[in-house]
């Protein structure tokens, strides 16, 4: 395992933006005093006249992005998830969502893995908020390659897109020829006793859990779900029919995220028992990222434990 390459999905965003900027000149980028952290700085270096720093003023930035979109430009607006999705929520809802404008909101530092900054910055509600906006596409790539491909897919799909990116370097498991399609999930390991559906940083943890389970004689399906909305319902149904037991994994509140999206689909179309691994109804705390994640059971070990208990029931 020594040759695993680790990169943060936000790095894929920066690279993807730069590639996109070279290909299309109507790409413009906005940031709110976090160009270094969100990696829009990479685009800025290549195309300084198409990068606009808005200062620490996220609400204004979202409406500026909306205005830019009305002139035919495609604005990628970035900040931390806490400030892009949450502070500016109503601006996103009314000035981007409602008029269905072609704005791509790319939010880094999603989830618990901001670590030491603590609860004020640990954003575990962004997916819930964005899911509630009609017409909003929500992407949550799992590695650097997927993030880079998702940037291009977001550009090519008209209308509002919210993309969640992570701060932490995580293993890159997709190869360069991976084809990313909005609305499609991916079976990483087949199995019939339980299906693990994960998104973002939890996908690699789910892969590790799937392997550990196999070694222990448990036959688990592992699914990467990089689009939260629209959800790949057919894949969810396939997994439910095959395994009869679903475990969802996300670095997000168990309220309103991937887990609840899966539950909604299943309860209406094919009632199936589901266990949701995520952040329970509570705030986080400061600690190094992997420690916070472990504190909330957001790790392969806990996925294995939950799956085994679930199967034993």
């Amino acid at each position: 395992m020594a040759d695993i390459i680790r990169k943060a999905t936000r790095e894929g965003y920066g690279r993807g933006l730069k590639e996109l900027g070279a290909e299309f000149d109507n790409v413009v980028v906005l940031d709110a005093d976090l160009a270094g952290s969100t990696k829009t700085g990479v685009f800025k270096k290549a195309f300084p006249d198409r990068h606009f720093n808005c200062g620490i003023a996220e609400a204004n930035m979202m409406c500026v992005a909306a205005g830019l979109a009305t002139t035919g430009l495609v604005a990628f607006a970035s900040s931390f998830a806490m400030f892009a999705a949450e502070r500016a929520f109503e601006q996103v809802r009314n000035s981007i969502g409602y008029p269905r404008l072609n704005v791509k909101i790319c939010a880094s530092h999603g989830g618990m893995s901001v670590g030491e900054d603590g609860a004020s910055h640990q954003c575990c509600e962004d997916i819930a908020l964005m899911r509630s906006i009609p017409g909003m596409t929500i992407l949550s790539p799992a590695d650097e390659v997927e993030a880079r491909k998702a940037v291009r897919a977001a550009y090519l799909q008209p209308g509002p897109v919210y993309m969640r990116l992570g701060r932490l370097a995580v293993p890159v498991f997709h190869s360069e020829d991976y084809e990313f399609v909005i609305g499609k999930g991916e079976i990483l390991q087949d199995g019939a006793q339980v299906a693990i559906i994960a998104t973002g940083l939890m996908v690699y943890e789910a892969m590790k859990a799937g392997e550990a389970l196999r070694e222990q004689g448990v036959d688990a399906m592992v699914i990467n779900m990089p689009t939260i909305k629209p959800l790949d319902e057919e894949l969810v149904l396939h997994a439910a029919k095959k395994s009869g037991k679903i475990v969802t994994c996300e670095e997000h509140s168990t309220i309103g995220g991937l887990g609840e999206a899966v539950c909604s689909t299943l309860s209406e179309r094919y009632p199936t028992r589901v266990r949701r691994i995520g952040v329970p109804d509570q705030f986080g705390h400061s600690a190094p990222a992997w420690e916070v994640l472990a504190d909330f059971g957001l790790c392969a070990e806990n996925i294995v434990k939950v799956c085994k208990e679930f199967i034993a029931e």
Partner: protein
Amino acid sequence: MTPQEKRQLEIMACKVRMGILTGTYSAKCGHPGGSLSAADIFTYLYFRELNVDPAAPKDPARDRFVLSKGHTAPGLYAALANRGFFPVEDLTTLRKDGSYLQGHPNMDSVPGVDMSTGSLGQGVSCACGMALGLKHQGIPARVYTLLGDGEIQEGQVWEACMFAAHYKLDNLVIMVDNNGLQIDGWIQDVMSPYPIGEKLAAFGLAVQEIDGHDFDQIEAALNTARATKGKPSAIVLKTVKGKGVSYMEDVADWHGKAPNEAEYRQGMEELEAALRELEAQ
């Protein structure tokens, strides 16, 4: 303030700066630059201005301080610890699993912290609410809040200023740490908020602009603020980001980065030398 008292403050400010370095070095992350630029105002507030008692941190009659630029918690914690709200040794637990010293101020876990902050632009509005609530109930306590000069790019800050002037919150002092830097560079290059003093005055605040590292000027400004009736006060503190640690001064990169071991040692040596010099005076 006698020269003796002034020297005592300068000595304490040195200790606060050491606490900032120790906390961020232990955590291997955090925000030293803006903590150091504000170390003198933290020191003055907690050692000369605020009517607070470490034995009764929730006393309803106490003065309040809201650190609107919450990322500079290492500075606030260092001042609170030295003032006796909790042990100075605990500064080494900053940002670690299980510590009450959260990365950004948490009023539920840290004794002496009056408001949970970290999302820029919000603390100043909370301070307005505190000032209004105290006034409304006839409690003569005062409220102080400190903002970053990048933070004032948030529109909410100006909503708060309008509110403070409208309700004549003369028990409120809004301070801006004008260290000139934010994360992406100099504030006038990222998104200029200048002229800061004129803007605050136009919003109806009684504005003073001072050297934020000069205790005589700080004292005079806060005394003037206390004597000002019928409108809220604003003080723009001209400061140096990273003040007191030579390699951090005026360098944007030290906004949110911890010193490594060699850097920590050098910084502590500089501060210890400054402390020895003050104590010898």
